[in-house]
């Protein structure tokens, strides 16, 4: 990753301008060309520096639902339960955290009912109780990592 990549990553975390020719606009801003920018973004996606490039939807505003949930998984069953969640498209993210509640995941569904059904399914398939912690108020969302 060179200086230009850093500049590009920082700029692209703020979003593509919603103008008729966004890559040209960005190329002008960064002193590059549309083609060169898109090639760099593809390379950064390919090597795993970026995980995704695209619209970030706020599913709550679209009638969908998210929740943060956790499981307390016995160590001997940890990988097995991780694989069960891996197979569910409703599970958007899953992290191990060092705590009694050692598996933390985000469920994303089109409806609140979908969340309830997913939780019931996880409890039935794993035999473990789900700690369900839906957000009640958002104070801040602004993931930005200066590089």
């Amino acid at each position, binding site marked *: 990753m060179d200086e230009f990549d850093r500049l590009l*990553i920082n700029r*692209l*975390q*703020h*979003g*593509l301008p*919603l103008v*008729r*020719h*966004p*890559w040209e606009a960005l190329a002008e801003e960064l002193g590059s060309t*549309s*083609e060169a920018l*898109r090639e760099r*973004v*593809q390379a950064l996606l390919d090597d*795993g*520096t*970026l*995980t*995704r*490039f*695209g*619209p970030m*939807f*706020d599913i709550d*505003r*679209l009638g*969908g639902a998210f929740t*943060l949930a956790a499981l307390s998984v016995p160590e001997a069953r940890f990988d097995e339960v*991780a694989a069960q969640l*891996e197979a569910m*498209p409703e599970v*958007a*993210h*899953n*992290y*191990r955290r*060092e*705590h009694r*509640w050692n598996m*933390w*995941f985000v469920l994303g*569904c*089109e409806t609140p*009912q*979908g969340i309830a*059904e997913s939780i019931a399914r996880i409890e039935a398939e794993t035999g473990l109780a789900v*700690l369900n*912690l*839906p*957000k*009640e108020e*958002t*104070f*801040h969302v*602004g993931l*930005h*990592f200066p*590089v």
Partner: protein
Amino acid sequence: MSVCTSPSDDGLTRRLIVLTEAGLPLVADPWAWLAGELGIDVDATLALLQRLQADGAIRRIAAIPNHYRLGYRHNGMTVWDVDDAEIARLGALIGAQPFVSHCYRRPRQEGWPYNLFAMVHGRDASDIEAYRNQIRALLGNACRANEMLVSSRILKKTGLRLATQRRA
């Protein structure tokens, strides 16, 4: 669906979500590509995106970095048991700290006494400990207990996938 979009937007928006779940193709004219997929003209496509972004339904069309790869290998979910009478003010204060990426109020549950969540990221373990201490100082006596849950492994990070979910 959002109150700020017209009913005809709703079907288009859902298709837009499905079309871009894995990302926006890196083509020279992305709005023309989307327009072709949605079967509407390019100006209407751009206007739809502008409405959705103004409405907050699209936060932005942006790159999501792998923060581990960028050196932010330490992430801590700090959780706090904050006095209900003070949480609106203190949640806003904690959310405004530059080192906090996400900050939410969530319900307490049986065996889970914490109602304020603030996510912090750092390049070293000492960074996130320092951030936790700063939050502790800001919350003062309004906070009864806290913990920091450090992530040790990403098990899954695909983001939202509606297209592959089973229909009810």
